């Protein structure tokens, strides 16, 4: 925000809490296929940890954590991971997002299915995180103008 708070207590507290939120978000994404949670929830949690730093620190500090210009390209990369996994399975003879047909022959078919859903969740998490941060950045964008 333009007038960031000068309170060192708020900055210290959010600096301490933010990495733990981020670690829990990664746990939620990578355990999404056996426990509650998944790509969307984990991505929203990662976005919450980034937004915590964005509202408590000034722009020079939060640009070090996650650059504004990375928002949209990384979101597009997440969508491309989702679409790419689906299309690869479709090109190799299956339906869209049919993980059985993914070209990973060195492991048994059950593991190929688990890796496929993991790739999808990484893509979804990346897209959700970056788009939520991009909404925040676009809301603040014309404040300096």
């Amino acid at each position, binding site marked *: 925000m333009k007038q960031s708070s000068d309170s060192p207590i708020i900055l210290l507290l959010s600096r301490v809490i933010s990495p733990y939120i981020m670690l829990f978000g990664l746990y939620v994404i990578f355990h999404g296929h056996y426990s*509650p*949670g998944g790509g969307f929830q984990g991505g929203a949690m990662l976005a919450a940890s980034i937004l915590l730093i964005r*509202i408590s620190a000034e722009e020079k500090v939060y640009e070090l954590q996650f650059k504004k210009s990375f928002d949209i390209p990384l979101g597009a990369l997440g969508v491309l991971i989702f679409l790419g996994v689906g299309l690869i399975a479709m090109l190799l003879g299956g339906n869209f997002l049919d993980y059985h047909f993914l070209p990973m022959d060195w492991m048994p078919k059950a593991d190929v299915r688990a890796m496929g859903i993991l790739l999808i969740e990484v893509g979804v998490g990346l897209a959700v995180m970056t788009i939520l941060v991009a909404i*925040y950045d676009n809301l603040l964008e014309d404040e300096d103008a």
Partner: protein
Amino acid sequence: MHWELELVLYLFLIISAVVSLYVKDLLTAVVSLSVFSFILAMLFVSMGAIDVGFTEAVIGAGVTGVLYIVLIYKTSRRSND
């Protein structure tokens, strides 16, 4: 979950919803709406929908609160009532 505890949660849910509708100060309304989302997430979890409760806690109580506060700081009230 014990029904007494759920009754208390429902009571606070209704109170926070009414407060966020009728309060004048917009920042108070946003904080009260976050409280509403958090209590609703706890009720979802107690009803067994852990995924829904998870999403409600993260999106409703976390991210939308931040976005609403940014919008409050970017707008101003035209009439001074």
